[in-house]
């Protein structure tokens, strides 16, 4: 699945509609450099999942939980994670047992630990305003 976005708002809207295809337990692993729109995508996802929480980048907190709505969204940022011990101590593996959707920024850092069935989302800058969003997974 591919989508060309020309603004942050378009990225959010695409994510909002994409959320309708997600189910509890899904893991969305995002790949994309700084400023690609990973957090904008998260905002759209949260709205699409019926959540009213405020979405923000979890770079320092490691994980933000959005739970005010239908399906919980667990928003991870693996930028500072540098190995399996480090990942274990975020409680990441405990979230995999839960009933929410996981959305992981900088998933490249934990490639080997992603479960089977993970949906891969890539956001590539085409130019300053444009992003190519690609989604790959068993159901996509």
């Amino acid at each position, binding site marked *: 699945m591919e989508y060309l976005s020309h603004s942050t708002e378009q990225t959010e809207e695409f994510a909002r509609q994409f959320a309708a295809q997600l189910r509890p337990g899904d893991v969305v692993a995002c790949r994309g450099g700084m400023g690609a729109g990973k957090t904008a995508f998260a905002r759209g996802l949260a709205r699409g999942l019926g959540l009213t929480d405020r979405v923000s980048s979890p770079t320092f907190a490691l994980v933000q939980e959005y739970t005010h709505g239908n399906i919980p969204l667990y928003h991870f940022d693996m930028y500072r994670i540098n*190995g*399996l*011990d480090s990942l*274990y*101590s*975020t*409680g990441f*593996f*405990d979230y*995999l*047992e*839960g*009933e929410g959707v996981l959305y992981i920024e900088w998933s490249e850092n934990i490639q*080997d*630990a992603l*479960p089977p069935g993970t949906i891969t989302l890539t956001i590539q800058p085409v130019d300053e305003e444009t992003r190519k969003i690609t989604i790959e997974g068993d159901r996509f």
Partner: protein
Amino acid sequence: MKILAIDTSSQSASCALSDDGKLLGEFYENVKLTHSQTILPMVQQLLATVRVPLDQVDLLAVTNGPGSFTGLRIGLSAVKGMAHALGKPCVGISTLEALAMNLWGQDCLVAPVLDARCAQVYTALFQGGPQGIHRLREDAALPLDQAEEGLKNAELPVFLVGDGAQMCYNRWKEHLPQLRLPAPALQYTRAAAVALAAGLPGHPPVEPQALAPAYLRLPQAERELLARQAQIETRR
């Protein structure tokens, strides 16, 4: 001696009160609830049901690893907090040992297996018999294939227990005909078993400040650590 034991090391949660080895009461649930919200009300209800006030507890016991990072910390914090407030000692019990206690007195081998993700398990080996349960191998984090290898040529039935038991049983039963699964009530960690272990020799109580988690490092993490250390060495 009254022992209050709790376990929140995996998806199930449990608490128990024993008095000189007799189990007065135990609660157990396995429904993916958030242990941080459920464990203390569970303890309160248990103590009310068996009519033992908290300040009559002599020793607090808790599973301290391996297991879920968050789960272990919830149980440890609860016990440290209570023990500190009461001025009583506490003791950490290996999750794998507590699991093996479920087969106490049976003539068999017991291999506790906890799912450690990434095709790895936390595991150990125990033998049941007239003396109850005794340990044959230390707790370890192993790749699945290596764990399977370690159970080959067993001469007794091998019971698998723990949250990885069903998965391992399905994978290994073809090549390990002596594998068994116990009844559902004995497949997961029970606080009664934690209390049983806490009352045995070899589990000295400690001050609450000294109670600590016993995480096992995963083999993959070990390799990564060695690779990183080697990189640092070559830069020097």
